[in-house]
């Protein structure tokens, strides 16, 4: 799931503009950034950090990665963490 504080309209238009995204985008738009705040990743400008969370079937947080805004996380690291859960 991808989450940003943009509206669902923006997210849909964006997903279409880049040729579609294979997972749903969730709009944390109103109350603005409420979910990002719960997860401790809402920045002062009202937008979220670039952050990854893995939540297992029991609803427990198993992995957290808060990344530099300008850097894209290495997805292999994430996949390795997911393999550990299976």
């Amino acid at each position, binding site marked *: 799931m*991808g989450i940003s504080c*943009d509206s669902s309209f923006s997210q849909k238009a964006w997903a279409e503009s880049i040729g579609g995204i294979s997972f749903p985008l969730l709009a944390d738009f109103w109350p603005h950034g409420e*979910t990002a705040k719960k997860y401790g990743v809402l920045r002062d400008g009202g937008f979220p950090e670039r952050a990854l969370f*893995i939540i297992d079937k029991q609803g427990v947080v198993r992995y*957290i990665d808060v990344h530099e*805004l300008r*850097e894209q*996380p290495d997805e292999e690291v994430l996949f390795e963490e997911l393999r550990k859960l299976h």
Partner: protein
Amino acid sequence: MAITKGRTSSADHTSTLKVGDVAPDFELKATTSDAPWKLSDQRGKSNVVIAFFPFSFTPV
């Protein structure tokens, strides 16, 4: 602004969460359905990856 792929993680915890905590439930509007998507609906069914990203339509 170019985005580079980096292995460096700036943090493995946030101001409210660390590994081992119960994930706060939330319900948000999804791009793929009219019904809201709720985290707790996945309990007992599947692991969930959540990717927060700063903005749509920008290189950020």
